[in-house]
């Protein structure tokens, strides 16, 4: 029998704000242990929460970017459970009234090859709600230690419908979601810093069946690749259990990305009963049309929309757009260079190939690059105008990377400019034609390749500095007139 997987993802994303969700002490990563606390974070007696307006803005933005309905009124609920990393032993969250409902994430499935665009589809979302993060526990031999710096950081929980069918789709979903969050400035989604965390609910069923199988929750999937590997492993495990005549038990499993194995978390916890109820310390939130309009005005173009635009408007191939678009800054860099040069394809090539390669080699982020869009545009223009030959252009690019000087300056100083004296070039061409009457006759008789016979002598005369394109054009003009 063939089985298909049914997968739903719960993704927690830390929302980028200056202060915490319900108090104004700074939020951040990497500060000295327990240096980002206050009476609210530590749940000291008498402390009260006050919500962070910017965190709400950010979640409304995420909701609008993902096509969610924004609840006109939502409220805060307490989720009651005891754990040492949770200072109040309840988490302020949203239960039956999340701020965002529905919506979807557009994903791209793997294409036939890396150079071919794969199919796109929308993965349905259930909801997005806002809550607060917990502290960080480390387990040692003698006991456990707690740092509450992370506690109270605004946290967005994005819940998908059980709408994913494979580990690859889950990978594509997380990749797309991460790109969108970074585009919106909502989160940096650095999984290593815990800014994005994913739990997966996985079940299998015979292909064609509509009922859902028993689901297993996978936890601690702490990189996008581990999510893919963990889900793939879980699907195989479930299929093999069922094929051996076994039954899937509802449980939570921990996938170890290092060993590639998973194990059941034998939870000492009793059955969960979170005793949700409305938090009496907080007032409800109303998101009106004006607020939504204000946020919408600040929403960036979605990555896949931008990719479609690059493909159609600029005629830049998929191999290039698939490199440029996932990085908002890089795609902005490209658009600037395309606009300044008027030659998007050439600009795209330089950026996606040479620029990224050189930055990568030097370990420099785009923001710190000495080469700016105007440099790329200038270089493209020089090449297009025939002012410098191809090999020289590479040399100019390398020099720009190093010095940040304008390409024109580099070309002139290094004497790289092509023999641009049109009269001189024409003279060399005339001499070449005069010296090979037979090839002239061949060309006139319709043998186009005969033109190549003149190029060698012209290049020799120009000592290699003539622009091949210009040589070709000049020869054709003269042949036409001859």
């Amino acid at each position: 029998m063939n089985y298909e997987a049914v997968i739903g993802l719960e993704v927690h994303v830390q929302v980028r704000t200056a202060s915490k969700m319900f108090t104004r002490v700074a939020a951040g990563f990497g500060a000295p242990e327990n240096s980002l606390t206050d009476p609210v974070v530590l749940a000291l007696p008498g402390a009260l929460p006050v919500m962070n307006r910017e965190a709400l803005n950010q979640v409304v933005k995420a909701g609008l970017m993902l096509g969610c309905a924004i609840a006109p009124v939502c409220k805060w609920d307490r989720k009651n459970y005891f754990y040492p990393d949770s200072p109040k032993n309840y988490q302020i969250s949203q239960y039956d009234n999340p701020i965002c409902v529905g919506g979807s994430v557009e994903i791209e499935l793997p294409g036939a090859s890396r150079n071919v665009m794969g199919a796109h589809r929308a993965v349905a979302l259930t909801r997005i709600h806002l809550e607060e993060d917990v502290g960080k526990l480390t387990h040692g031999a003698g006991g456990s230690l707690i740092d509450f710096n992370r506690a109270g950081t605004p946290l967005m929980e994005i819940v998908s419908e059980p709408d994913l069918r494979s580990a690859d789709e889950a990978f594509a979903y997380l990749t797309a979601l991460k790109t969108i969050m970074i585009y919106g400035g909502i989160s940096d989604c650095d999984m290593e810093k815990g800014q994005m965390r994913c739990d997966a609910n996985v079940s299998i069923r015979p292909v064609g069946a509509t009922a859902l199988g028993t689901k297993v929750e996978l936890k601690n999937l702490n990189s996008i690749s581990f999510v893919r590997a963990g889900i793939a492993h879980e699907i195989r495990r479930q299929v093999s259990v069922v094929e051996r005549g076994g039954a899937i038990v509802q449980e939570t499993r921990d996938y170890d990305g290092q060993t590639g194995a998973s194990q059941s978390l034998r939870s000492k916890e009793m059955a969960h009963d979170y005793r949700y109820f409305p938090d009496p310390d907080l007032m409800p939130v109303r998101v009106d049309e004006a607020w939504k309009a204000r946020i919408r005005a600040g929403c960036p173009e979605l990555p896949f929309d931008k990719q479609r635009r690059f493909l159609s408007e600029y005629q830049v191939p998929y191999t290039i757009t698939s490199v440029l678009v996932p990085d908002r800054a890089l795609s902005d860099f490209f658009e600037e260079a395309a606009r300044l040069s008027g030659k998007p394809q050439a600009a795209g090539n330089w950026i996606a190939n040479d620029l990224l390669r050189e930055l990568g080699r030097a370990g420099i982020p785009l923001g710190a690059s000495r080469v700016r869009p105007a440099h790329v545009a200038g270089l493209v223009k020089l090449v297009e105008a025939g002012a410098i030959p191809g090999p020289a252009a590479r040399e100019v690019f390398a020099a720009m990377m190093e010095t940040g000087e304008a390409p024109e300056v580099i070309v002139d100083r290094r004497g790289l400019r092509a023999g641009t004296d049109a009269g001189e070039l024409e003279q060399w061409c005339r001499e070449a034609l005069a010296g090979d009457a037979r090839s002239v006759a061949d060309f006139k008789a319709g043998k186009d390749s005969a033109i190549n016979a003149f190029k060698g002598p012209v290049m020799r005369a120009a000592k290699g500095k003539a622009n091949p394109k210009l040589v070709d054009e000049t020869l054709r003009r003269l042949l036409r007139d001859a």
Partner: protein
Amino acid sequence: MSRPADLDIDHVARLARISLSEEEKAAFSGQLGDVLAYIALLKEVDVSGVEPTAHAFPVENVWAEDVAQPGLPVEAALRNAPARRDNLFAVPKVVE
């Protein structure tokens, strides 16, 4: 004293993370039975179409601007800690 029909005191005490002695369980069951019997009076109220009151005077959108302010110095944060190691709060082993 009346024992409540469906108050499973062991279960509830577990949810509340309080260990109760046998005497406490017996006493609380009886006392809370009385209270619950009294509270049952509420069942006679017709609440159809009545909205619940969460706040006596609700207002919306009570928030603060996102401007970071200084918090507690580390020593003040840990001052009341029953146990610490360096600048971390220490607890007995968390058994997963």
